[in-house]
């Protein structure tokens, strides 16, 4: 059973992709209307996402830990309700949070008629909803958080394939084998396929999240430089005729470039720590606990492993086809 890893790759990819598309987002409050309150009787319509509002919903305003309970709540459907408040004058902060049961929309309402603070009402206690397996619901990302399991594995696969390419290049320097050189070239080519896929999917996701297809971000620069380096690698290969000379020149460039690339991806971002839009604190390639919770993680790692195995399979096919072509030419 020497092909077990191919089955493993496809299996992981299948399970992770189904999970990535099917697991619901956590419920959240996404919109309130109107978005400002003044002292007096006010009706506020609250829109939720993936929520299950029931007629017993407990709605309150929270301003600097001082609460205002809703006097009446009318639930329109599972994700819309209207609550009436007697808004007192003299609240402290100019942003008021809205809370429905255990969901909180922070800073939802601009507040007028500020003052030294109000006497907090004691609203009925709300109990946290039973925990369920959901993806976190982040503003501006919403459902597109699922892309984590499709877009990011492209980069992991690319780096692994480039690593294989460099490994084969190191072997070329040791033994001058043309077969290792072939493997190095094919790994770089498959890596470039994943680079292109990562760039295009990233551009689409960036357009929907940050409003532009390309932003000046350390990760995007890293991706662009990786692409340029390996295109240059292929150009170098194309411009040398003699096979042994080509193998050695390409191997030297590959090792040199990969080491500098590693520096660029993992050291330089730490210097320019402030200006990354990506999660993981300024180009830190890892994800810390704040950025990725366990539900995302438990799907993300199988997806990454699945894509890496599929990438290796593509590389395997490409090398075998190229070897066959070489044997036929001979």
């Amino acid at each position, binding site marked *: 059973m020497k092909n077990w890893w191919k089955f493993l790759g496809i299996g992981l990819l299948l399970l992770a992709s189904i999970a990535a598309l099917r697991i619901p987002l956590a419920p959240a409050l996404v919109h309130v209307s109107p978005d400002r309150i003044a002292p007096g009787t006010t009706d506020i319509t609250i829109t939720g996402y993936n929520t299950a509002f029931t007629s017993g919903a407990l709605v309150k305003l929270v301003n600097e830990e001082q609460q205002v309970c809703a006097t009446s709540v009318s639930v329109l459907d599972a994700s819309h309700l209207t609550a009436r408040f007697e808004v007192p004058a003299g609240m402290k902060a100019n942003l008021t949070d809205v809370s429905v049961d255990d969901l909180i929309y922070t800073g939802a309402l601009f507040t007028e008629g500020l003052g030294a603070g109000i006497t907090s009402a004691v609203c009925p206690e709300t109990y946290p909803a039973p925990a369920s397996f959901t993806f976190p619901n982040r503003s501006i990302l919403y459902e*597109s958080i699922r892309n984590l399991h499709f877009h990011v594995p492209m980069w992991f696969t690319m780096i692994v394939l480039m690593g294989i390419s460099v490994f084969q290049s190191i072997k070329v320097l040791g033994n001058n084998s043309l077969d290792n050189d072939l493997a190095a070239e094919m790994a770089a080519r498959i890596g470039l396929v994943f680079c292109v*896929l990562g760039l295009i999917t990233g551009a689409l996701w960036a357009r929907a999240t940050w409003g532009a297809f390309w932003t000046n971000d350390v990760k995007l620069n890293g991706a662009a430089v990786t692409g340029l380096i390996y295109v240059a690698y292929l150009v170098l290969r194309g411009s040398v005729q003699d096979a042994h000379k080509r193998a050695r020149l390409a191997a030297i460039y590959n090792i040199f470039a990969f080491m500098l690339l590693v520096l660029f991806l993992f050291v330089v971002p730490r210097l320019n720590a402030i200006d990354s839009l990506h999660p993981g604190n300024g180009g830190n390639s890892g994800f810390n606990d704040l950025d990725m919770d366990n539900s995302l993680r438990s799907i993300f790692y199988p997806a990454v492993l699945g894509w890496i195995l599929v990438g290796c399979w593509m590389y395997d096919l490409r090398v075998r086809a190229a070897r066959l072509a070489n044997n036929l030419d001979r």
Partner: protein
Amino acid sequence: MRTLLSFFLLLSTIVANAQNAAPSWLESTLYGSGKINVVVGVVAIIILGIGIWLWRMDRRISNLERKS
């Protein structure tokens, strides 16, 4: 050459006007329904990319078959 130039001029005016116009078809598609269409787009791009790779691999192997 001139058509190319006027095409780019047209393109740049479109891009320049896009900022203050009503949301374009792209924005309304991407931002609607909790941004799920972004995921649809990303998955479609990946499947298309792998498909193009498979197609080229297919051609490559056809060539090998013809040679042997």
